[in-house]
């Protein structure tokens, strides 16, 4: 007997979580089939909605850019309502852990390289460090962490013309680790407030930074200020320094991305979504133009999951929701049509930040987000797609990655839930 639900969402990232939450809101019985850790561990944890469109940007109002996007862009299909629906679900899921929901405007947030970027939602630990908020800034980097060079980042901020002064210093972390220790080891030392010469990690770090402080009204660190006890770490450092401390989002392994993943999975639990994790969807059975079951490879044993409606949210090229070889690009679970230039040398541009075709690879959705074949007709009447597997957006250059996942997840999930509970 197959496991049966109303809505089956395949995937484990932002789009899948949003689709599941959205479907659950309709009262449907929802199951999430997640293969493995999502790509959130590689993401900064910022929620970009739209920062650049039609040659304009950085956009202070993401909604103002929607009309400038090309036809076939997922935002053109779900519209402003879809974007807002995605953000509503996100805001409800994350609560106070994220900021930015008080306004339609984008914030400008500094990245670990020092460039600022427009984003719509940001972790609360990032909030005091907005480049679009006033207050002179001291950035603190650590000699043993190569990803963030505080003086370089501060000078980079200044080069962008931020309306405050920024200064960077590199200090020794109070505790010495193996030379190749990762950011997670630093976070753990702060979490546990491990003993070190002259006190504990937090107190010695605060003393070190206090010596460097020269009238700045906020202090930023790479995002490693604790994991399980991050609030305590920030509160204590802030208290000892007498100014707010903030985190600068980083690349992988991204603690902020991992925390977001945890938050979203908690929200799924709370919404009653069933989660089957750890095994990939590899096949399906269909009848009369409908997907009947999705087959999961459970330690080499094919296990069927059946549902009335299915949402495909397996990710794009990075998340392996799309696959390719030297000749073609494919969607591996359902074999949905993925248009692409015939010559693989046309998939990318010679300029590293060019208008790469591969960035827009994905399935072609109809107006109900159902992947369509070459003939423009939906492959299956009950299969929808959300997130990176949907084509048509260069989310990296637009700064729209999370937004596209939220919007398409919200709409695909709602439509699936409504169909299933009709």
């Amino acid at each position, binding site marked *: 007997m197959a496991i049966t639900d109303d809505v089956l969402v395949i995937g484990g990232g932002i789009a899948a979580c949003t689709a599941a939450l959205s479907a659950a809101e309709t009262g449907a019985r929802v199951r999430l089939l997640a293969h493995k850790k999502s*790509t959130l561990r*590689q*993401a*900064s944890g910022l929620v*970009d909605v739209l*920062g650049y469109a039609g040659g304009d*940007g*950085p956009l*202070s109002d993401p909604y103002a850019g929607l009309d400038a996007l090309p036809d076939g862009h997922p935002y053109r299909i779900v519209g402003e309502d879809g974007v807002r629906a995605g953000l509503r679900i996100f805001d409800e899921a994350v*609560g*106070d*852990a994220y*900021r*930015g929901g*008080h306004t339609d405007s984008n*914030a*400008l947030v500094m*990245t*670990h*390289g020092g*460039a600022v*970027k427009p984003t719509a939602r940001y972790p*609360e630990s990032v*909030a*005091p460090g*907005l480049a*679009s*908020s006033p207050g002179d800034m001291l950035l603190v980097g650590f000699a043993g962490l*190569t*990803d963030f060079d505080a*003086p*370089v980042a501060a000078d980079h901020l200044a*080069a962008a*013309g931020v309306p405050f002064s920024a200064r960077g210093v590199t200090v*020794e972390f109070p505790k010495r680790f*193996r*030379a*190749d*220790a990762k950011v*997670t080891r630093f*976070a753990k030392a702060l*979490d546990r407030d491990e003993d070190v010469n002259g006190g504990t990690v937090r107190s010695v770090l605060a003393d070190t930074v206090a010596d460097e402080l020269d009238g700045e009204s906020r202090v930023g660190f790479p995002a490693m200020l604790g994991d399980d006890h*991050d609030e305590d770490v920030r*509160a204590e450092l802030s208290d000892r320094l007498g100014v*707010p401390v903030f985190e600068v989002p980083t*690349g*992988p*392994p991204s603690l902020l991305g991992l925390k977001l993943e*945890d938050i979203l999975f*908690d929200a799924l639990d709370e919404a009653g979504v069933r989660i089957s994790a750890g095994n990939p969807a590899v096949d399906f059975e269909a009848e009369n133009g409908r997907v009947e079951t999705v087959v999961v490879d459970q330690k080499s044993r094919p296990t069927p999951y059946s549902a009335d409606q299915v949402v495909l949210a397996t990710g794009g090229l*990075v998340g392996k929701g799309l*696959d390719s*070889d030297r000749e073609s690009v494919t969607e591996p679970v359902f074999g949905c049509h993925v248009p692409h230039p015939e010559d693989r040398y046309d998939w*990318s541009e*010679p*300029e*590293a*930040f060019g208008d790469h075709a591969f960035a827009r690879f994905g399935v072609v959705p109809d107006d109900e987000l159902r992947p369509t074949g070459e003939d423009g007709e939906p492959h299956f009447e009950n299969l929808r797609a959300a997130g990176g597997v949907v084509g048509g957006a260069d989310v*990296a*250059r637009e700064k729209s990655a999370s937004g596209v996942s939220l919007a398409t997840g919200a709409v695909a999930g709602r439509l699936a839930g409504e169909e299933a509970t009709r």
Partner: protein
Amino acid sequence: MKKSPSVLVIGGGSTGTGIARDLAMRGLDVTLVEKGNLTHGTTGRMHGLLHSGGRYAVSDQPSAKECIEENRVLRRIAGHCVEMTGGLFVQRPEDSDEYFEKKLEGCRECGIPAEVLSAEEAREIEPYLAKDIKRAIKVPDGAVDPFRLCVANAASAVEHGARIETHSEVTDVLVEGGEVVGVEVTHQTGTGPYVHGEPGEVEEIRADYVVNATGAWAGQIGDLAGVDVEVRPSKGVMTIMNTRQVDTVVNRCRPKGDADIIVPHETTCILGTTDEEVEDPEDYPEEGWEVDLMIETLSELVPMLAEARTIRSFWGVRPLYEPPGTGTEDPTDITREFFLLDHADRDDLPGMTSIVGGKLTTYRMMAEKISDHVCEKLDVEAECRTADVPLPGSEDFTVLRDYMDDFGLRSPIGRRSAQRLGSRADEVLNSVDPNPVVCECEAVTRAEIQDSLDTAGTDLNSVRIQTRASMGNCQGAICCHRMANELAPEYDETTVRASLDDLYQERWKGERHAMWGTQLSQSALKHMLHAATMNRDEDPAAADADIDFAAFDDGGASEDDASGVASGGAVADGGRKQAADRAGDDPLGGADGDN
């Protein structure tokens, strides 16, 4: 004291740096100029094979004998640049027995140790060889790191008083009274290491003798001097795999042909190659069919290559030469020998000699011969010592011990560092504290990066070739901004950014030839990290227009001061997975490590 005669060497490849070292060791006053990085031309664009001579044992025995001789010399003087992997000439059922026997006999005639292996014995050495191979000949082929070799030669030359100027292009050859007396050089930036943003300058360098060691570019220097040097540049593709599918050099045992060699190189394998004549050594098509040909043909020897991941491809141009009137049509038939063209004898233009042809394995011997020639011209009596004196880094191999305790580096990182640095490991790795890993794919620490900056200036591609940082699976996705950060505080932020952009673009160029399957996934991740996460594509600091910061969300600072840190409240701070799990995460993750 009498001033030493001065020699100007043009070309910073293996031949040029080899000549510079040789002449400097003989006490001459040497200046070497190179228009790009060291290894910029052909040296940095080859498969890294240290020939046993086996490849030439049938067609070109004089070259084969030189190869085995120099193979032994390089193991002695450049141990830290060489990996003696051994090599196999593998015969497939369709390959002729007659050629196999000739190869074996040729090896023996040239003094190349050669042993016939059954198919089973060959597969014991290389388990991924095709099931249907017939047999193989085992020879002492190896792998050589051409970058390290070239840099070590340059370093030795400098130790002996030479001046090396990279990013310095010869824009004229000075001829006075019918004699070459020097060159005009245009430095891209000032003299010394390249620095982004520094203005260029033009310098006249006069010398008692000029050596044109520019390989495939020798004709262009010849033009500046008004003489014809008929190089016939021939391009070849090299496709780099993500890992070492073989640990031995695998050659196809048949007469010349495309796609007939796999060379294990550091963390990768390199598939080669093609042989096609080109007009211009800097402007020729790099075509996808060549990459396809490597994969399809070489998977006849090692079937798993058909589905394996390649991380990039690159092309090099051979500096082939043939004496006027030879008229060879197929470039694969042009001899691999080297030629010393004395322009006094040949063109009635004294003061300059060109050296063309040849191959990396015999670079030292070529350098010795031309150095002998130059010394004769300048009436200098001095012995060549380059075959006996080890290169910097290869003096003392007791350093190749376990580095874990010495440097607090985990064993694989310490070992890799010590292999690259050889006898310089102590000096370099102890120079920086703390010494974090910058490039995780290739296990390169800050100390090695900092060491390379002495000569690299702000040219991160020079750092790359010296250290291998950014040359692994992720092609710099994770580390290239970290490499750039290492330029600070000596250089300012604008320079850091310009250097990063250069390196990133250089990596992208070669990656494009591998963009399908897992590597396309990796490239997509790179695009996300650098465009989405870091906003490097739209960096406002690089844009002309000013941003109206006040138009953006200020975090509610104006109405609500609670956006800050200590704003308690019940925060949905997440299901707490064990942080210990995360600590072990491979940061390359997703595209790379999760498979």
